[in-house]
């Protein structure tokens, strides 16, 4: 136990990374082996992520399972410092789950299979890294590492779609996604440098987030400077979180991406952005965060409504889900921006919940696309008759996404609204927050509109003859989808195991405000 505690965090990054490197040396001609190997690695990381989550002692709070490895000394002071807190622990678990699901679903990849898993595991390692490091350099390192494989994953294994009036090739989707995310990271990088400099002015030249956080809390960072730095983080990380108007990479990326990549993309990658805003923006530049939160809450609201309204008139299933992700990430941003314990905790829970939910969506859309080779909801119909399990799960995912109680999304969204309604306790933007909360609720209603339209149009009813050949989900797909549904329900009914972990760290985080 002691030994595992010491190594768990290191291993959870190392395992997928080493898996990725080892997979490079596997034979290209035996794709099945690569799949089995990837499952093995993913299972190890899943086990580790569960261990980490369970092991997190919510009564103690703070960062746990911490380790630090020296990397570069003063004046840079970069160390590979690891640690999880209540905000990252659920996200680590989320990534473990989604990575496992993604690897399983990737069974259908037949082309350059080995390379696919090499990249997918590297992606997983990057995401784990971001969630567990306590050093700005390594945070940025893993952040970019998570972005990097996306280009090839989408570009090589993706699909191009002709929408009649416009064309979305996989090259375009991949290129845009990559450029967009790296553009965001440009801002982050500049922000990190600025933060390092400002801390250096105070005699604390370091990239160590713990030290920087202490410095910020002691009032060591000039508030004016923080106000300049925070927007860099807000937009930089916001790009990855799908912050309006920097969101278009996301739906287009989904449309181009293969199923398991979409799962990771929407399931965890977008969470990195929101996590970054919390972990870097709010924790290290609290005064800046406080100053800019009215803007963020406004943008979050725009996200919610804009995403939902856009989703309403989309025909392609992946566009619908993609825009719906934009909309749902709006709740996360909104929750963060409330600066209220309930709102922020809701945002974190929403990250988890949306991760599972949207991954489920993509599993199902992928299953449909694999069989029908089309994702146009105007052409597909009556799927319930042909693909009962898929449709059933889709309906459940849809209900979860419109915030139906009993599913995790409700708890999270409700907490976000609650936070928004109370956030004036600390800040002077009551009308803003009330409006945001109110419009957020409206957004949930709009979600109902497009989800139900979709269900009615595409899944219910009689099927055309051309869909007679469709078969229901494979056992692997059923298993993954079922597991996701189960998680949605369990968290929706009994969120306490998650919330008690999240609450403790959110409270610590918000002490700075």
């Amino acid at each position: 136990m002691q030994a595992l505690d010491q190594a768990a965090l290191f291993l959870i990054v190392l395992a997928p990374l080493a898996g990725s490197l080892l997979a490079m040396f596997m034979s290209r001609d035996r794709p099945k082996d690569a799949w089995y190997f990837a499952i093995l690695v993913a299972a190890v990381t899943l086990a580790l992520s569960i261990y980490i989550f369970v092991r997190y002692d919510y009564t103690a709070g703070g960062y746990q399972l911490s380790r630090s490895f020296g990397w570069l000394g003063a004046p840079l002071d970069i160390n590979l410092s690891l640690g999880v807190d209540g905000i990252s622990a659920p996200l680590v678990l989320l990534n473990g789950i989604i990575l496992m699901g993604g690897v399983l679903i990737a069974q259908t990849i037949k082309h350059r299979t080995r390379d696919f898993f090499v990249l997918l595991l590297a992606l997983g390692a990057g995401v784990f890294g971001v969630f567990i490091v306590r050093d700005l350099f390594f945070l940025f390192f893993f952040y970019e590492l998570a972005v990097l494989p996306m280009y090839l994953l989408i570009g090589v294994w993706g699909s191009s779609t002709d929408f009649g009036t416009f064309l979305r090739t996989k090259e375009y989707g991949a290129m845009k996604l990559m450029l967009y995310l790296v553009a965001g990271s440009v801002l982050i990088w500049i922000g990190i440098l600025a933060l390092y400099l400002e801390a250096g002015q105070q005699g604390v030249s370091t990239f160590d987030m713990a030290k920087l956080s202490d410095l910020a809390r002691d009032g060591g960072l000039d508030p004016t400077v923080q106000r300049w730095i925070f927007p860099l983080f807000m937009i930089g990380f916001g790009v990855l979180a799908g912050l309006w108007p920097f969101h278009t990479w996301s739906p287009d990326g989904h449309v181009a991406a293969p199923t398991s990549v979409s799962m990771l993309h929407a399931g965890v990658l977008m969470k990195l952005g929101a996590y970054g805003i919390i972990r870097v923006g709010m924790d290290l530049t609290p005064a800046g965060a406080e100053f800019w939160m009215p803007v963020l809450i406004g943008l979050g609201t725009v996200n919610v409504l804009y995403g939902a309204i856009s989703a309403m008139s989309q025909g392609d299933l992946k566009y619908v889900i993609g825009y719906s992700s934009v909309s749902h990430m709006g709740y996360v941003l909104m929750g963060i921006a409330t600066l209220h314990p309930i709102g922020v905790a809701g945002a974190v829970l929403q990250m988890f919940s949306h991760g599972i939910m949207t991954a489920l969506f993509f599993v199902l859309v992928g299953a449909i696309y694999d069989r029908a080779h089309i994702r146009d909801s105007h052409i597909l119909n009556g799927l319930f008759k042909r693909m009962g399990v898929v449709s059933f799960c889709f309906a459940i995912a849809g209900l979860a996404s419109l915030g139906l109680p009993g599913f995790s999304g409700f708890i999270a969204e409700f907490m976000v609204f609650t936070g928004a309604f109370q956030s004036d306790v600390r800040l002077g933007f009551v009308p803003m927050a009330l409006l945001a909360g109110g419009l957020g609720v409206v957004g949930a209603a709009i979600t109902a509109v497009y989800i139900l339209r979709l269900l009615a149009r595409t899944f219910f009813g009689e099927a055309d003859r051309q869909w007679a050949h469709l078969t229901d989900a494979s056992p692997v797909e059923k298993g993954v989808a079922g597991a996701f549904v189960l998680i949605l329900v369990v968290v929706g009914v009994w969120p306490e195991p998650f919330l008690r972990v999240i609450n403790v760290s959110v409270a610590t985080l918000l002490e700075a405000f």
Partner: protein
Amino acid sequence: MELAWLIPVLSFIAFPIIVFWGKRLPGGGAPLAIGAIAAGFALFWVALLGFLAATPDTEHCLTDAATGTLACNFQRAWFNAGLPGLPDSVALSWGMTIDPLALAMLGMVTLVALMVQIYSLGYMKGDPHFGWYYACHALFAAAMLTLVLADSFLLLYVAWELVGACSYLLIGFWHERPAAREAAKKAFIVTRLGDVGLLLGILLLWREVGSFSMTAAFELAHSGEMSHGVATASSLLMLLGAMGKSAQFPFHVWLPDAMEGPTPVSALIHAATMVAAGVYLVARAFPIFQYSGDALMAVAIVGLVTALMASTIALTSTDLKRILAYSTISHLGLMMLSLGAGGYTAALFHLLAHGFSKALLFLGAGSVLHSTEQQDIRHMGGLRKAMPLTALLFSLGAMSLGGIPILAGFWSKDEVLSAVSHGLHPVFIVLALVTALLSALYMARAMFVVFFGPSPESEHHDHPVHDAPLAMAAPMVLLGVLAAGFGLISFNWPGSFGGIGSFLFYHEPEGFHFTWWLGILSTILAVAAFAFGYLVYVRKSLSLEGFRRSFAPAIRVVERKYYVDELYQWVVDRVVMVFSRFIALFDRAVVNDVLVNGPANSARRLGVAMRLHVTGHVYSYALVMALGAAALAILWWWRVA
């Protein structure tokens, strides 16, 4: 009494079992659902007796200052939002309040649900998704019972949404029919619009109270410390939710369409229980509404408008189930009106009486539909002979709702009218009486046309029309008894029972009060209406043709349901979807193509343009170097000088 938590939980447990293993269970899982609800009904009696035995000294129980009634609270921790112990965190619990209001609803819901589920055994026999049907029923029952028992607004909202979802699933049960799909979607979305208000109202209250607990909110309102504006705003917002669920104008459009679902579902969800949840909500939050005052007025107006509008439409509708649906809307409006007038007891009494009667009517209609496979009353007639039991029970229900004395509806409606006459401006009572008259008229119409009128010549039934089988008949009989006799509980009977008003009241126990002039007037109106109906539809001695001709335009407006559906459709097609398409186009053309591709393309074009400076001529390279050298030298010199 604490065992009451089992009532919803049993059904909750039944749901997944039926979903996953229904096919392997005997009877497709139906016995499990029925068993669960039957146990719930039994437990209701346990809870009722426990409550009646309780005093303010009993553990968990105390007299609620805001409502003036005894209430018992039981809680289990659910989850904490925010770190426990901090001032702005909130601990949420699974909690139930057992008080007269909850018990009354509990009894009605368990009973009607039980009846309907039994009835469905016959009605849904042979359906390919029989198990799924019962699973949904179980889930619905669980959610509805949770709604009734909930002690916090949040839990209420949870249940509220879940019943909506069950309604959605059950309306869309026959999803192969496009109309059913559309109706399900419409029902969910329209109620969801109202729910936006409900959730906002709840959140607004939370903001004021700092807790989702109803008791806490009521106490704050009762003590007068709640801001008046917040009370008004949040109660109006909650009213929106109630209007959505209870199909009040202008959210009423979903309910008639919801008749696309199986008829027992209509009986249970869209007549007796779920649609009453709106009224229940207003009653539950009555302390806040009353504190606001203005909100109560809004409730009254909404109720009156709805009642009037729906009853006129019911008169012109030709679909049997839709007549009943509009009737439901109208009666829900009356209940709202009563609440708005402060007639708390009257509203709830009417809710219960209407619930039994309307369930009965729907089950009767279901029986008719089941055997004739026909919904249009113009194609029916004279069914009295073929299905006497159904005819009897249906007439009982219709007369009860029409306000024929002694039957349950008469008493409850009179209570309502009495409350309205006491609590509100005279205009209200006049219009309420009009509604009562209309209500009797359309009930008479439905009853006489279907069962007593002449059988349409053109209709030849391919298979013989038969009366309801036992599984369907037994529940109807039981409900018929209630529809007939339920009104009797309103009296002060000798002994300890002081009538419903002594049990279910707000602040002050109420005795039975009967306003004589109103009673007589309404009796006259009801009897006249039925007599008129008899003359018109059975005897055919009166003709409405002249009336129809002279008021043709007005009638057309009513027949087209005041164009509310068209208005909705127009808004959706011409505003919402157009806006959505605009946003989608904006997203692609402006946000993506201009703001995203634009800089990217500009950078590339800039690169293409800039590369021209490398001309390939060695002398121009040298020239640039020379100029650069001169410039650098000048700058270098200038900076240091």
